């Protein structure tokens, strides 16, 4: 395997789907508080963690993300009252299903970060980066053939 060679200097790519009201504000707080965290994460802001279609996660993995993080408001604190509770049910089943078919459990991570938890956001990113780094680059279900150009 050439994995050892290619892993050198490799940094994980993590796609984070975060909710607008809590985690995104938490990330903002981490930023303005100048808390350092690894630059491995690509943040995608959504209205609510309930807006995360399980398809986004599967698609991100197919497009080569080494890890996917979904983060929203703590249960009971959703801006839309119950968005994160619906989300929690979806994620519980999706995570279990992806593990069942053989994905490493640590590639899909779910967490709650509120707007006041800048410190926690940094720790989450550190934690997720460490977990994904330990797994190495994603190999399962990564698409290698490009789509034909659209006419």
């Amino acid at each position: 395997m050439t994995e050892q060679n290619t892993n050198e200097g490799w940094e994980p790519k993590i796609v984070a789907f975060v909710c607008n009201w809590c985690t995104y504000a938490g990330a903002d707080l981490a930023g303005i508080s100048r808390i350092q965290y690894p630059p491995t994460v690509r943040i995608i802001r959504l209205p609510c963690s309930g807006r995360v279609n399980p398809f986004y996660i599967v698609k991100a993995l197919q497009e080569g993300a080494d890890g996917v993080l979904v983060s929203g408001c703590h249960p009971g604190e959703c801006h839309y009252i119950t968005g994160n509770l619906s989300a929690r049910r979806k994620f519980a089943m999706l995570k279990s299903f992806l593990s069942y078919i053989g994905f490493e459990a640590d590639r899909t991570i779910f967490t709650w970060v509120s707007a006041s938890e800048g410190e926690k956001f940094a720790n989450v990113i550190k934690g997720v980066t460490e977990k994904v780094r330990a797994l190495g680059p994603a190999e399962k279900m990564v698409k290698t053939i490009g789509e034909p150009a659209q006419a």
Partner: protein
Amino acid sequence: MENIEKQLREEAGKLLSEKKVDVLIGYGKGTLPYQAVPTIITEPGEAEQLVWNPFCTVNLAKYVHDVIFQHRESQKRVKPEDRTKKIVGVVARGCTTRSIIIHLQERQYERDEVVIIGVPCSGYVSKKKLWDALEGREPLECAVEGDTVKVKTQEGSRSVALKDVLSDSCFTCRYNNPIIFDVMVGDPAPPMNPEAEYEIVDAFESLPDDERWAYFTKEMSKCIRCYACRNTCPSCYCKICFVEQSGPKWVGVTIDESDTQVFQIMRIFHQAGRCVDCGSCVEVCPMGVDLRRFLKKLDKDGYNLFGHRAGESLDSPPPLSERSMNDKEDFIFEP
């Protein structure tokens, strides 16, 4: 079995002649001896076409949805005051009624638009298993007598035990008798063996990650994306399925194996809390993909996490359309 068939024809004829239903969906004799086909009748005289035997395979709830929706489509060109409802009668076994319950819960049609003729079910014959049991010899005539299937092939007659060729879904079926019905024909069938329901999942869960992934990719590499599983699935009723959407294009069109895997993962995941394990997708798959192993996992999770079984009663809504503060969240990452 003949008795049930006779009663079924009587009931169907009665419903049609009393105009209680406009159209009746049942099983009719197929062109292949080991396969009954969905049959749609509108005249009382056609009730003689109906059959009921262990070769009645696919879940008819799909056709109920199709007929009602095609009728609704045809009514769009009619003046609002002249629009009609179409009452659909259906011959339903346990899994079919579960699918109808899911449709009703998801507000696809009203309860008064469907008249359910319940039939007891003791399982259906899987055509793949039958071919395997005959070692590839083509069955020319098939008949079920008690516990055996009498098959005539070119090389002579053979008997196959019914339990050797029943579909996998049927052995561990929990609801082989209709859950909701308007008319019931025959006596309730004896229970199957639901205790062993999740054995297939438990065995698979105990394997290491890489072996499970290897099995998943091996199975999915057989898939030719003909979408027969989607077309036969009563829970797959979207007007525009995600596989046909082009903006965003969810499922790629290349020969990359990941495209097929993404399709399968998402189709299976869309059945979370909605799969009734009728086995139709497995039965129609031309490539013999082991779909049940993966669908059953969602069923197991739905039960273990949320105490819910798909379509078990009209009052228990699908788990993903419900929410609760008290759900387990041991999977949430805390740094």
